[in-house]
């Protein structure tokens, strides 16, 4: 699937953390993410999937291998690659509005140039009326909405999402998945989404990559043949379940025991 239009291209990526007992988090990772593609990286905790995301974001450097973003070498972290963190990572001293507009404000954009767009984005993620609230006043799901809104406002080429719904209760998680589906289907931006939840991976992504642990590698590539637009009703679809069984089998083979991942 490697074409000239790839948003992200990795080959032979390796990451070893030095120390008395060096840990190899990633080994020989090859991954190509097409422009506008929604990719899910599925794997148990400790499989290095967050490390992979941090390398794409520019937060960490690979020990070996090559990484190209938009055909060029990776640059330092910046607004072309927006990250949604698991623990929202909002600034507790800023209101919802100021958190969302932090990016344009530090880039010294004129207030008039982003104010309307910011309000539209806040409304889009369902936070209208909460503009002047502080993060401590919000629930976990609402905080993640703020985290998504501030990324949307940056209009990045690439969305990197590190288990953004992992800490939410089941019902809130479903709401957030629907929100993300809705937003993505209107924007069609490239997304790398990390999760340990099989259902979530299949429901959201065009392609699900299953990772294996210690050291982390890409084990298999699984295209998702579900039509768009999608919604959470598809969680009971037969195509959905067939793919789910297939991925579960791979994971069982990999781990040798069934409880390694998945929320069931």
């Amino acid at each position, binding site marked *: 699937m490697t074409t000239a239009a790839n948003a992200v291209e990795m080959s032979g990526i390796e990451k070893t953390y030095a120390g008395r007992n060096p840990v190899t988090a990633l080994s020989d990772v090859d991954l190509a993410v097409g422009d506008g593609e929604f990719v899910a990286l599925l794997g148990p905790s400790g499989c290095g999937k967050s490390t992979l995301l941090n390398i794409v974001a520019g937060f960490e450097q690979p020990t070996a291998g090559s990484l190209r973003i938009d055909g060029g070498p990776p640059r330092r*972290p*910046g607004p072309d690659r927006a990250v949604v*963190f698991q*623990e929202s*990572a909002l*600034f507790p*001293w800023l209101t919802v509005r100021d958190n969302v507009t932090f*990016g344009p404000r530090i880039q010294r954009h004129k207030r008039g140039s982003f104010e309307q767009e910011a309000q539209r984005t806040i409304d889009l993620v369902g936070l209208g009326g909460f503009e002047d609230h502080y993060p401590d006043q919000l629930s976990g799901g609402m905080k993640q909405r703020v985290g998504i809104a501030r990324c949307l406002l940056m209009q990045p080429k690439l969305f990197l999402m590190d288990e953004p719904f992992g800490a939410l209760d089941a019902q809130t998680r479903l709401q957030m998945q629907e929100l993300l589906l809705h937003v993505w289907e209107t924007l069609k931006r490239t997304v790398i989404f990390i999760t340990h939840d099989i259902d979530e991976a299949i429901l959201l992504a065009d392609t699900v990559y299953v990772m294996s642990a210690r050291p982390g590698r890409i084990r298999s590539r699984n295209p998702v043949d579900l039509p768009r637009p999608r919604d959470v009703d598809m969680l009971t679809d037969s195509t959905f379940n067939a793919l789910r069984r297939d991925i579960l089998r791979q994971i069982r083979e990999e781990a040798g025991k069934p409880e390694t991942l998945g929320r069931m």
Partner: protein
Amino acid sequence: MTLSGLGDGLNARLRTFLQGLALPVVLLLLWEGAGRAELLPAGILPAPSTVLKTWEEWAFGSGGFGLNPYSGTWFDTVLFSARRVVQGFFWACVAGVPLGIWIGWSALAARSIDPLIQGLRPIPITAWLPFSIALFGIRDMGAVFLIALGAFYPILINATYGARDVGRNLIRAAQMMGASDRDLVLRVVFPNALPAIFTGMRLGLGVAWTAVIVAEIVAVKSGLGYVLWDAYYVGRMDVVLADMVSIGLAGFLSDRLMLLVQARVLHWRTLSRG
């Protein structure tokens, strides 16, 4: 919350307040009683009513002539001390906050500056007195220097801690939104350190009041510390006690003022979940 619930809350707070007041009142009454029964040596421990009368004369008396040189000088005396505290505290903040942030943020600064500060810190400000007098003479500067030095350490250490404490993902979030190193320090590390900085400033203010008394006893000729020692020398223990109460009151009120400022600046912290 219902209206009666609100009343209950108020009653509970009043009850707590009265409970806290009981012991001091009992002690004061015992002290007063013992004083009137002439069980206490009046020259060492004058009764509370005497102290109060002395304070009244000190604060509102007219002219400082003859036998009572303190008459009517209380407000000026408090102002002398308060001004020194404010000046010293100001310089402690000006030096301690940026330096602390820098040490907390930069590994290089931590390696090169922190050891010096940790080496100097165990020297109590009282040990700096001779040096301070030699350097500045018997003038305000010496007192301000000591106060600033004393308040500097807790402010610096807490600012360092607050800056070091910033979450890795907060930094990363700011970076991915395009923050430069300057933005990180000013817009992430500094606001993140503010709660700790306030803790340091409250501690520093307490040290500042200690330092001003020490400095005024030794190094200058005005203020609450000077009067405290001067009154002791002429055997006016009533003035000494009134002075002690004044120092406590000034320290208490300045801390309350600090808390008010803190509540305003850190209002995002005091909000409960809505």
